[in-house]
């Protein structure tokens, strides 16, 4: 048994950016039938490294394997009129059309909201773009670095004397994809409940990033100020940062004096644990450099797992900083069988990230990423197009 809450939902995926790609993966992961439309040369992420091994190969891009898992792939050349007619035929059979093309590019392909609303009144059109589809910056394109810079997250991350930092792992794109998935499923529920029309969703990556700055937007809006980059320290809690220890790193996030004292007890530093400067949050922060030097000295004698368990027992909010390798051995993730085994005919067998949640104690199943055009025949025949090579309309390949 697998969790498939979105079973029966049909999604046409025209994504070319990770934000659309990850949104499609999420919908597919939870049971939607997601068909990715690829140009004859393949989705651009098929050409992006790293690859499995050293040699570029369209079926071995780690980005494509991860972000396009769960899909079926149909090749349609949208540069031709015939290809756009095929797109129209596919559009007629789906609930959701998901794309991340800037407005000019989208209308060149016939993806104008008004026209689609007229020809496909039940369709939910989800445009998940860098800056949204209206406003003076609507034509600006960009991937993760641009949207984390434009959305205020880079300016908050890193050392105030050095360049702002992009958080690792394409988080600007991920958080946009998640917000898009929320509003897409809400629109599906609304459409199905009312038996009326679909809606047009304009999701902005810049705004998605700006929505997750914790309280930085509120400081800007209420007090007209920007929180400066803290070089990895929490702006309020102390200690609240990543610390080196023996053979790795731990991260702490302490709100109270008791927790701050416990951090020093944890490393056997009874003298500092009793230091009265720990009593007040602002005083603690004022002495942060000296106190952190003491703490780092103590932490260096212990390993991350030891500090994690003993720290938690002392009531300290503490975590291990996992590497991608040690994450696989995290006892909690192992106990929950978080990771999933994937099999791919070209890439080989590998371990991929598991689902973010389970429903009724069952995990969703995720199929591997498709080979280029793997499902062209099947998908086209489903929409009544001749899948026979001889009689196929021009502009369609598989």
């Amino acid at each position, binding site marked *: 048994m697998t969790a*498939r809450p979105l079973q029966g939902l049909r999604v046409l995926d025209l994504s070319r950016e990770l934000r659309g790609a990850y949104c499609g993966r999420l919908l597919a992961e939870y049971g939607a039938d997601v068909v990715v439309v690829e140009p004859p040369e393949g989705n651009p992420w098929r050409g992006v490294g*790293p690859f499995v*091994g050293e040699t570029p190969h369209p079926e071995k891009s*780690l980005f494509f*394997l*991860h972000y396009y898992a769960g899909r079926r792939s149909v090749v349609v050349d949208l540069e031709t009129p015939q290809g756009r007619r095929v797109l129209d035929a596919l559009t007629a059979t789906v609930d959701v059309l998901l794309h991340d093309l800037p407005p000019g590019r989208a209308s060149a392909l016939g993806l104008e909201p008004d026209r689609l609303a007229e020809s496909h009144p039940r369709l939910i059109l989800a445009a998940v773009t860098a800056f949204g589809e209206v406003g003076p910056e609507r*034509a*600006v394109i960009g*991937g993760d*670095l*641009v949207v*984390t810079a*434009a959305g*205020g*997250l880079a300016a908050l*991350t890193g050392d*105030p004397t050095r*360049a*702002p*930092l992009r958080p*690792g792992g394409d988080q600007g794109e*991920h958080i946009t994809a*998640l*917000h898009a*998935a*929320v509003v897409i499923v809400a*629109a*599906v*529920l609304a459409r*199905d409940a009312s038996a009326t029309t679909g809606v047009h*969703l304009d999701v*902005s990556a*810049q705004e998605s990033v*700006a*929505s*997750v*700055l*914790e309280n*930085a*937007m*509120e400081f*800007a*809006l209420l007090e007209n100020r*920007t929180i400066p*980059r803290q070089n990895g*320290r929490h702006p309020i809690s102390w200690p609240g940062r990543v610390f*080196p220890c023996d053979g790795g790193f731990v*991260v702490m*996030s302490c709100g109270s004096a008791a927790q701050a004292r416990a951090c020093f007890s944890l490393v056997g530093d009874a003298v500092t644990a009793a230091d009265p400067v720990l009593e007040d949050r602002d005083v603690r922060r004022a002495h942060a450099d000296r106190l952190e030097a003491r703490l780092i000295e103590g932490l260096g004698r212990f390993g991350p797992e030891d500090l994690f368990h003993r720290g*938690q027992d002392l009531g300290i909010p503490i*975590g291990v*900083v996992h*590497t*991608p390798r040690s*994450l696989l051995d995290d*006892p909690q993730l192992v*106990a929950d069988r978080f990771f999933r085994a994937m099999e791919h005919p070209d890439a080989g067998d590998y*371990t991929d990230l598991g689902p*973010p*949640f389970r429903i009724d104690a069952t995990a969703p199943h995720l199929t591997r990423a498709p080979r280029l055009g793997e499902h062209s025949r099947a998908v086209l025949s489903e929409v009544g197009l001749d899948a026979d090579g001889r009689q196929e309309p021009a502009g369609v390949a598989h």
Partner: protein
Amino acid sequence: MKRVLLLGGIRVIDFSTAYAGPYAGKLLADLGAAVIHVETGDRLDIMREYPPHGAADGPDRSAIFASLHRNKRGLTLNLKTAGARGVMERLVAASDVLLENFTPRVLPSLGFPWARLQTLNPRLVYCAMPGFGASGPHREYRSYGPTLEGQSGLASLTGYEGEAPLRMGCSYPDMVGGVTGAFAILAALRERTRTGRGALIELPQQQAAAALTGIAVSEWSLNGRVMGRLGNAHPWFVPHGIYRSAGHDRWIAIVVRDDPAWAQLAPLVGLPAMSRAERQRRRAEIDARIEAWTAEHEPEALSRRLHGLGVEAYPVRTALELARDPHLAARGFIETIPHPTLGPLPYAGPPWRVTRAETAPHTAAPRLGEHTEVILGELGYGQGEMDALRAEGALR
């Protein structure tokens, strides 16, 4: 952007605290669900105290609480009393969704294990968002956004090249848990339209965050390489950086994904045509040449010039710049609505515009216990019963 009513008629009990759970409830409320935030005045939600503060004192002074709980109504209950548990029973029976982010022992200890919730309301979607999981060795451990950043593997990917991991500038796993929770709830509600039954969602926030580590685990699994910190560099695209510009603490992000874009940028920085492989080999030199050039220009004009050439670029924006940004203003991303103690308060979000949907004005976050009597009335309690509950201490 007004509140869009895509979720009209969906009733949600937001029995959550701090940030992650409330953010899930906020997204549902912003989409038109009728969300009731259940809290207790005995132990204030920590966000009621969290800065920035728009008033000197009191439980309604936090602007971030105001943002997380706008469009919700508020009810105070002390679930240690029998009377409050009775109220919760009626609320569960009358709702579609129950959302909480406690450790897994809390709801059962208050008398509401999943089996009982199902009996009270077989159509209930129950979303539990603990830090670590319903079972497993760390289930009772405490977690906050920053500790989950480590525990999920995310922190190990953030930092300057070759240096130690660095906490992001926000408690990212909190917001991740929230938005993932909203998605999970809506997915389960859609399944309910097919099955007629509710569902249990288990969403350990560690797993929601770990699910966002991208290709790092497959890179280890397939190639045996541990991805570390790359600063602003990318494993494939070169250049890919944030470069100092003219002005105080001004920066510009520039990305080249393909050879045609490089052909546009290269002459501006005095470099020749290069293949991707060559750009990857000469990354440090390319970054230095670009920064020598960008340092002479202010980022807005430079960014526009690069857009004209088809090169991806944008100035690094601070939150304050976003608060005054004409593009975001034109989109209606920043909106001011009245708040009973904080006055007219500007809000950011949500990050979408929905056309052809019904809308309604936004409402302010509830003052502590603001809607307790109204909600009890809706649940069928008469004035006498409410007085008795109050005397029992159930409504604190």
